[in-house]
């Protein structure tokens, strides 16, 4: 989007190390009831959410993890063949705690909101309306809105019956991490806004409510969308009328819940420029909205090295061996080592720059594993890495 963002930071700072993020302290903190994992697409948010949820459960908490679009693999890794809108227990969780997993079904969730809020007859009218069908299944912000809605539902239920004491939320794989915070506001301001009132104006009596612009606008809309779409929308709006205020109120309530001290945000990124830039925007935005940020998780980092060999030395040595003419495995190993050193140096530099711009944000760097996660054991291993344990040998 084109909104202007003001950058927020210390303005003068050298590349530095972030304070360490103590993941276990976060997971063990009984005052934290909601943990939200945000970040741009492709940084391993869903896996991180699942690993954190499992670790919290095995440290004794009653956890539910709300995923948005998990790979089949991950659902299987948790021993749940099919994830849907209802939490299902994950088998073989060690210890006193428990872990349930679920996947957001945005249309079902939207439908449930409608049925719970409207009379049966009105609800049917809404659910059958073509405009509603399109809105509830394909509008880009619906997923974010419904993720928050579901979060609110689970949280209320958990508070009422004590079924969970920690909700871990994965966020939709949006273009930008900011969509998670922006989209619900966009949807509710639309549902509650000027444009809807404009559509309902004729039904609500005095047309003087709107200026002379009204005719131009409906005329233009009819031209663009066709008269039928406009009619569908008017029917939808008329049926939905009583629900609008409710939507605004719900969105505000969830927003307040996210600002609450019982919530913690983790920003997930990869050690790449784009992902860290998104993370920086997101961190600044959370601060602006006074949302409780717990820290940054940098996934998929090159494994750390302990030797003192530099990239140049390793490359030079590999070349020397190659020139000596003997077929040598060592030359290959040295070149691998050089590549890894170069990547690690670049990544460290990016993370240090992030730390310089956001010195108060605790961070943990999680090394990339050579293979994918297939089972709970794999998730546990990632949990260990998140908690700063084990170098993955």
């Amino acid at each position: 989007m084109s909104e202007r963002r003001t950058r927020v930071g210390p303005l003068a700072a050298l590349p530095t190390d972030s304070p360490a993020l103590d993941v276990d302290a976060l997971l063990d903190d009984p005052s934290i009831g909601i943990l939200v994992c945000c970040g741009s697409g492709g940084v391993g948010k869903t896996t991180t959410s699942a690993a954190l949820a499992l670790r919290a459960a095995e440290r004794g908490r009653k956890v539910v993890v709300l995923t948005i679009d998990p790979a089949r693999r991950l659902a299987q890794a948790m021993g749940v063949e099919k994830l849907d809108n209802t939490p299902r227990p994950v088998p073989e969780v060690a210890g006193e705690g428990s872990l349930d997993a679920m996947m957001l079904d945005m249309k079902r969730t939207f439908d449930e909101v409608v049925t719970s809020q409207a009379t049966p007859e009105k609800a049917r009218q809404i659910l059958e309306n073509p405009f509603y069908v399109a809105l509830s299944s394909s509008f880009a912000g619906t997923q974010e809105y419904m993720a928050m809605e579901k979060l609110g539902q689970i949280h209320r239920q958990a508070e009422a019956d004590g079924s969970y004491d920690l909700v871990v939320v994965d966020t939709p794989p949006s273009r930008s991490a900011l969509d998670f915070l922006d989209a619900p506001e966009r949807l509710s301001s639309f549902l509650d806004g000027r444009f809807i009132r404009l559509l309902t104006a004729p039904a609500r009596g005095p047309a003087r409510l709107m200026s002379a612009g009204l005719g131009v606008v409906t005329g233009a809309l009819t031209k663009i969308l066709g008269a039928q779409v406009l009619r569908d929308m008017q029917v939808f709006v008329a049926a939905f009328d009583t629900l609008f205020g409710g939507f605004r109120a719900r969105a505000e309530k969830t927003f307040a819940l996210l600002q609450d001290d019982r919530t913690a945000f983790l920003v997930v990124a990869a050690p790449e420029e784009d992902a860290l830039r998104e993370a920086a925007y997101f961190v600044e935005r959370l601060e602006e909205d006074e949302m409780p940020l717990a820290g940054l998780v940098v996934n998929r980092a090159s494994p750390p090295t302990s030797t003192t060999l530099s990239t140049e030395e390793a490359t030079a040595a590999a070349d020397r061996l190659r020139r000596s003419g003997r077929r040598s495995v060592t030359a290959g190993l040295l070149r691998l080592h050089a590549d890894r050193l170069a990547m690690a140096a670049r990544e460290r530099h990016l993370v240090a720059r992030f730390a310089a711009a956001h010195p108060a944000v605790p961070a943990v760097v999680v090394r990339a594993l050579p293979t994918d996660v297939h089972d709970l054991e794999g998730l546990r291993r990632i949990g260990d890495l998140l908690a700063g344990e084990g170098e993955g040998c």
Partner: protein
Amino acid sequence: MSPSKDWSGVDLHVVTGKGGTGKSTVAAALALALASSGRRVLLCEVEGRQGIARMFDVDPLPYAETRVARGLPDAGGGAGTVHALHVDPESALLEYLSMYYKLGRAGKALDRFGVIEFATTIAPGVRDVLLTGKVYEAVQRNSRSKGATTYDAVVLDAPPTGRITQFLNVNGELAGLARVGPVKNQADTVMTLFRSSRTVVHLVTLLEEMPVQETADGIAELEAADLPVGAVVVNLVRSRDLDDEALDAAARGALDTEEIADDLVRAGVLGETGGTGDREDLDALVEELVEEGREHAERRDLEEAQRALVADLGRPTYELPLLAAGVDLGGLYELAACLKEQGLGR
């Protein structure tokens, strides 16, 4: 392993891929590759990221075609160019309105009533019709359009694999909503191009399970929607510094550590790390190299399995190396050359 295919009849290359696979980088490299043989190429982005501006290190792009790269003149004095266009739905809508409906003043009224926002962010499908409509216009443009730049090829940096079919299948997306009307007509026109042999959709993947699975799913969805699937571009491929025999030994933990230590001494590494005869340093280095070799072998093994799955997709496949130093403009040129050498963007 790469069935060669002739892409010369293609006017629109759509590039998609799972988040994190580097689809924008591949789209930019493809645009450069196409332009390098003297073509005029337009590179479009539709997700509001200004990624092109960052990759080419130029000012943020306006809603206007801007030249971002020009080739060196060839023997005939001609030089290829890459223009870039950042398509945002608000501007596309206003342009659409003024083009088809001469809505100058009314456009402002629409904005005041929140209609522009509605149409571009809320109305399902309308946003995508506007975005694809602009790309369509650029592809269809021909020499009869007065004063406008025409292109030999258009490359679209498209939404990710999970959303690509919905994005391109604009009239499917609209079907529930607008069964008739101008937007529907516009969507139908755009679809005709997308379904034709002038368009191909390339999918970018990594040799990892989730991206490969998503690529397979994406291809199935595109085919079901009757959209033309092009190539699979495998990005960030690790270097092959170890041969099969060494890989096998590394995986089994059977690398000859004595030989490696000897080699390191011969290559003079030891002297540089901590003084001659420092046996502990040497052993530590050997151990680390062997462990790296083992992880690399494990990783390569996984990649081979995924490479086989990619081959099973039956699409022309191209591979791009992982550039350890990251992708800057020089890196983009390098990737473009790789694509060209393999036959994509020739």
